[in-house]
């Protein structure tokens, strides 16, 4: 049989969870990470990272909208997926996850963004014309009350939403880890640490993504990068990265020490089929190098230009590393036989429904949505002044 080494059970030869199922935890991870960054600064009132607050929320939203698409494309009958909502089964992790997703999307993210932007939306609905005006009008839900009192109420409610949002974000991504970690039939996945590792790697990837996006958008708008802001975000990234790394190592050491009946087989897999994606990409290039780079920034005094370059480089490496981690979990868990006697191969299709082109498209789509959202709801604090003025001169 092509691609099979040793002995595989017949149902293990083809991999059913494709690159799209790799993309799915990666994307939800970015959502959870970006949101947690925004929440940290809101709950703990960190002034320095304020410029990334709204950007992080919009990033989370645009990735969250795309998150279910890879799953839909993976399904043989996507049109049946709403049945999960209509007749949910309490023992189905996926069905319960659907509600977590909806809750997080509507009650947390959209609500928090709406509260935070309400003033802008009202002002925009007064200063714009035509179709845009109608759009903003709808988004105000017909209330143009931006009295100081109402805004104060918004802030309070927003704070509570953020507070509820943090556990929600943890549940959202913890659930993704749970779906893998709770599979006792698969020794590569079966670990109570899985949800925790997923959450921390999610925070790492999400914070790095917001850092990159912030620097990119500043560059595109020809605005100076707020160095105290990126320094603080990078510091968060560094510390959470250390936590994430420790947890992953804990998981690894635990597996090595426990060395259960699957160990020889999995160990062999890590040294052969997964060597490049696990050891080279995930561990060395995607974890050790960026941790080292970020550590250098923490302990030395480098110039702003060099720091920026380091942030961009380590931000990109982090994305590679976290994507590789998702890859190794999802694909790695299907490469070996439960007989522990053989291995199969995963070949990514190019133009198939679950192929590479679709995966690339789904990775770009959130960025396209984000750029639309950035136009619709500009997160830049500077624009706020102009808005008030524009609205003042424009009111008929």
């Amino acid at each position, binding site marked *: 049989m092509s691609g099979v080494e040793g*002995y595989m*059970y*017949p149902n293990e030869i083809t991999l059913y969870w494709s690159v799209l199922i790799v993309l799915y935890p990666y994307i939800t991870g970015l959502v959870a990470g970006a949101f947690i960054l925004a929440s940290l600064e809101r709950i703990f009132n960190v002034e320095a990272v304020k410029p990334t607050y709204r950007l992080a929320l919009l990033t989370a939203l645009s990735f969250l909208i795309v998150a279910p698409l890879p799953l839909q494309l993976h399904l043989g009958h996507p049109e049946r997926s*709403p*049945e999960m*909502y*209509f*007749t949910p*089964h309490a023992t189905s992790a996926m069905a319960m996850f659907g509600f977590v997703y909806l809750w997080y999307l*509507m*009650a947390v993210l959209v*609500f928090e963004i*709406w509260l935070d932007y*309400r003033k802008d939306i009202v002002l925009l609905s007064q200063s714009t014309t035509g179709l845009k005006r109608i759009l903003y009008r709808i988004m*105000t*839900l*017909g*209330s143009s*009350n931006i*009295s100081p*009192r*109402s805004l104060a*109420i918004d802030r309070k*409610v927003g704070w509570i939403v953020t507070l509820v949002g943090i556990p929600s974000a943890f549940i959202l991504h913890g659930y993704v880890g749970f779906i893998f970690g709770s599979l006792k039939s698969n020794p590569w996945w079966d670990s109570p640490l899985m949800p925790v590792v997923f959450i921390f790697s999610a925070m790492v990837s999400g914070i790095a993504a917001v850092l990159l996006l912030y620097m990119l958008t500043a560059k595109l708008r020809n605005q100076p990068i707020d160095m105290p802001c990126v320094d603080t975000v990078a510091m968060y990234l560094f510390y959470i990265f250390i936590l994430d790394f420790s947890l992953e190592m804990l998981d690894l050491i635990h597996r090595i020490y426990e060395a259960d009946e699957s160990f020889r087989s999995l160990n062999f897999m890590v040294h052969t089929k997964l060597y490049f994606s696990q050891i080279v990409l995930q561990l060395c290039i995607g974890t050790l190098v960026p941790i080292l780079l970020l550590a250098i920034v923490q302990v030395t005094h480098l110039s702003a230009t060099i720091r920026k370059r380091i942030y961009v480089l380590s931000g990109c490496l982090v994305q590679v590393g976290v994507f590789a981690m998702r890859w190794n979990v999802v694909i790695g868990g299907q490469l070996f036989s439960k*007989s522990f*006697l053989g291995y199969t191969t995963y070949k990514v299709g190019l133009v198939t429904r679950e192929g590479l082109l679709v995966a690339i498209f789904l990775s770009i789509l959130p960025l396209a949505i984000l750029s639309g959202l950035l136009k619709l709801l500009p997160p830049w604090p500077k624009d706020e002044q102009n808005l008030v003025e524009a609205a003042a001169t424009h009111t008929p």
Partner: protein
Amino acid sequence: MSRFKDAGHLFRFAFLFVVAFAVFLVVRHFVVPRSFGEYGHYRGAAIGEIAAHPIHFAGHQACEACHADIADTKKAGKHATVNCEACHGPLANHAADPSIQPAKLDTAVLCIRCHAASAAKPKDFPQVDAEQHSSGVACETCHQPHSPAIQAGGAK
């Protein structure tokens, strides 16, 4: 009262949720089949629909009533536990009307379906590599399908 007024927009948002939930309930009412949940977490009417499917298998008791000779041969042999229709395929129509001739079986493909050597099978299950064992000759040439064991020293 004015506090209430300043929180008015929040009620509008909450109202959206209520509307969305109401729409959900209405849609749910129409898309979930009537008999869902009647007996368990599935469409109750499905049981009736499946029961209405035509029967394909007669069961070995039916065969044995008419083919007692073969039933006796089989009972004494190694295939005692193998059901008639596991080899002959579904024959409910033949059992109901014997004038319908069952299809002839080709032992060159039939037997290896169960006996092809594979590491996944229990070690004590009789299995052969068809190429080595008989190099394409129909198994029937040497083995009696209804009593397949070949006694040592017996006819080949």
